[in-house]
């Protein structure tokens, strides 16, 4: 195994992690501020991908599509928040799970109604095609590097927003004490709508970025949703830092597991068997990691409240 391949796989893990962070940051923010579990977050990811593919096909520009994905997902998020979600803040988690489960069904079939049953086409923009050389003789795809870049920008942007801006101050206040911000005279329902739309926008952005790599189709959000939940639970629900750390941990562990486990088993099993058993273990790996972490730290690595 060469160093170049190892570096490439680490970058792949990092890229997967960054993508998960875009999803997980919204989920954890929404949970931190409003105390809501949103199973429909994957649907907003799907909305972003469909908006990007449709607009890119109509205008011929990926970049306009990307802007459209942000706008469409944020708008869909705001609408859903106003119509449905805000009635759920005072409910227990059970009602939230059920209502957002229902939203998944509505979003999926609604999207299929609008866009038909066949997957849509979306390609990476010409500007980002090609690869860059890596130390050690390998190369890495420019577009995936760009995704890592977007993740870093979003992470820094979120940090600055929460630490420095008025909105961030309100979010922090909302996380620590909900009654207090109402007492401060802040319009709490607008704040909640904005936070929800922000999370939705990030999910939509992730959907559009990833849509160019894979297939834009109904149901694409569900596998990512489950992974994003694993991420925020590992990181500690409500903690953005935890989401970042958890996302990168899950991304790297998953990628390296898929890559290394079958090879490690080659020492014990014939090639076909090693590939089979290794593949099976790799698909369970992140759940095992999550169970181990929660067994020792029941509130995740960076618990926001204790």
């Amino acid at each position: 195994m060469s160093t170049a391949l190892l570096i490439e796989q680490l970058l792949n893990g990092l890229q997967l992690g960054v993508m998960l962070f875009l999803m997980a940051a919204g989920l954890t923010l929404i949970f931190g501020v409003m105390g809501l579990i949103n199973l429909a977050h994957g649907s907003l990811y799907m909305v972003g991908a469909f908006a990007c593919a449709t607009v890119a096909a109509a205008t011929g520009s990926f970049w306009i599509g990307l802007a459209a994905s942000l706008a469409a997902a944020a708008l869909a998020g705001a609408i859903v928040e106003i119509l449905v979600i805000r009635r759920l803040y005072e409910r227990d988690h059970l009602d939230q799970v059920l209502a957002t489960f229902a939203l998944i069904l509505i979003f999926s079939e609604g999207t299929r109604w609008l866009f038909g049953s066949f997957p849509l086409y979306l390609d990476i923009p010409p500007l980002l095609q090609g690869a860059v050389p890596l130390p050690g003789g390998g190369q890495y795809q420019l577009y995936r590097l760009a995704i890592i870049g977007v993740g870093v920008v979003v992470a820094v942007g979120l940090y600055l927003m929460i630490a420095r801006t008025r909105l961030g101050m309100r979010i922090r206040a909302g996380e620590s004490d909900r009654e207090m911000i109402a007492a401060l005279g802040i319009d709490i329902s607008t704040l909640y709508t904005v936070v929800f739309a922000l999370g939705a926008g990030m999910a939509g952005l992730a959907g559009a970025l990833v849509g160019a790599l894979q297939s834009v189709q109904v149901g694409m959000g569900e596998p990512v949703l489950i992974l994003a939940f694993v991420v925020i639970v590992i990181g500690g629900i409500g903690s953005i830092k935890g989401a970042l750390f958890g996302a990168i941990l899950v991304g790297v562990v998953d990628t390296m597991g898929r890559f290394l486990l079958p090879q490690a088993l080659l020492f014990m099993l014939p090639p076909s068997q090693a590939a089979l058993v290794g593949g099976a273990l790799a698909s369970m790996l992140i759940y095992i990691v999550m169970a181990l972490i929660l067994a020792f730290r029941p509130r995740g690595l960076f618990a926001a409240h204790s």
Partner: protein
Amino acid sequence: MKLIAAGIFSAALALSSTALAEPVKIGIITTLSGGGAGLGIDVRDAFVLAVEQSGNEEIELVIEDDGQKPELAVQIAEKMIQSDQVDLMTGIIWSNLAMAVVPNTVAQDIIYLSPNAGPSALAGANCHPNYFNVAYQNDNFHEAMGQYAAQNYKNTFILAPNYPAGKDSLTGFKRFYTGELAGEIYTQVGQTDYAAEIAQIRASGADSVFFFLPGGMGIAFMKQYAQSGVDIPVMGPGFSFSQDVLPAVGDAALGVKNSASWSKDLDNEANKRFVEAFEAEFGRLPSVYAAQSWDTANLILSALSKASVKDKEAFRAALKEADFESVRGEFSFNNNNHPVQNIYVREVIKEGDVLTNRIIGTAFEDHSDAYAKDCPM
């Protein structure tokens, strides 16, 4: 004048087919909602169109959506058998749903005809006189690619999802492939990012890649493979290059060799009529699933003109003769009621703006499957 001729013609047709007057109920369970709906819609559309075009008005279709859930498919099958009292059943796309429905259906003496999916478990020792597969045995397309690879390459990298159809796929490929394996990977079911696998392919020194990744998995793999700049030639079974997914894969698929029992440019009269009629009716090109479903409908129609569907024994015999004009050309049934047919190697090309396939060779002539010998029929 024309009208009279047409009248005489249809009267003659009515006389020749004794069973035409008898009502027949056909149950179609297929996937019409969720992510895999595109395949089921092609199967439904082609079947309905074939029945319409036959002019046989005694056929009643009961069509239900299984949502790609085995439990729901079982429930619908029970309803069709017990409540609608269908004579025949067809339509299922996925192997796992077929495994859920078919054994119980055929055990209740209902004839089931598969327009897609041919799990090995139903082709060998557990074959059944009431089960007819009009599509393929699951291994067939992969075997054809193995044959093609054996002739063209020496060091192939192979990958498939980690589930039974994936294992059958790689087993089928290896059954005919004689060269070295540069690597063998089982990916996660539903996986959408293949960067790690593509990096391994790049590093493996392979001279070719064979992959079986149905549905969205294949779209994701092909796009990422093309974007990664790896230029090792790719091949796979026709599912990932079928008309329903090609638009989503885009130019990344151009030039890829794939295998199927059917292609829209297959040169026979029945196929020309089929492609023309399908395109005229639905405004899109048919997929291999549509072709298989069209054949299923025409097989049923041919048997109906020979025997009554109430006389199971005679009707099974009429089906087994496979006396219909297949869009795949020569078509007959083996002892296990699975097809004996040609499997072609196709190449993805562009016709104007539309991606589609053309045939570049024949991998197997009159190919059957490896499990028929275990079937006691």
